[in-house]
């Protein structure tokens, strides 16, 4: 029994830290990839994909990594709450934006994309 506990104390701690850091890093990379997509995709609807999908996964990975780093404490609970709220609100906001764009008559680009889109808010 004692050596199993010692084994865990010896290996579980570094593993937890390594895994947590790796997950956080993966989340950061994923979020950045999504942001590049938002910058480079041709129209609003494709950008919506790039933003909302990668955001949810990237946030999950980052928060999971942070929870592993924090260990078992109130911090973990707060991270879980953040994850839950992000999971509720982020897709809702994306839905609201897509709904507003669609009902306002913003057309997606269908077929091959050639050049810049014309629809501007005149800013």
């Amino acid at each position: 029994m004692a050596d199993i506990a010692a084994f865990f104390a010896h290996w579980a701690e570094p593993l937890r830290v390594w895994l947590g850091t790796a997950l956080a890093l993966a989340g950061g990379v994923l979020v950045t990839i999504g942001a590049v997509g938002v910058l480079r995709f041709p129209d609003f609807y494709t950008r919506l994909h790039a933003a909302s999908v990668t955001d949810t996964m990237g946030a999950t990975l980052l928060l999971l990594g942070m929870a592993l780093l924090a260990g078992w404490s109130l911090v973990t609970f707060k991270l879980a709450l953040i994850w839950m709220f992000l999971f509720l609100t982020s897709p809702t906001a994306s839905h609201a934006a897509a709904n507003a764009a669609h009902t306002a008559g913003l057309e997606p680009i269908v077929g091959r994309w050639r050049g810049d889109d014309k629809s501007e808010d005149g800013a």
Partner: protein
Amino acid sequence: MLIAAAVAVVVSMALMLARAIMGPTLYDRVLAVNSFGTKTVLLMGLLGFLTGRPDFLDIALLYALINFVATIAILKFFRYRSFQIPLSGRGVGGSDG
């Protein structure tokens, strides 16, 4: 290595900011600002770990809760042109783009 994750989040915030400034449609701006808010939540969490104090998680939690209020206000603004009528009603319609 956590700092690398923080840098990645900051870089993605900068890219999202570029989209928010460039537009071109207002919906792109809404999308960018909303996504920027999500990344702010993540960065605040990471900052809490980088500085070794967990008190910041409360702020990230607050953003996670209320960041979409602005998006809904914008939806109401463009679709209904009024903050009075409930959301289930009929909008002004697609004159806006």
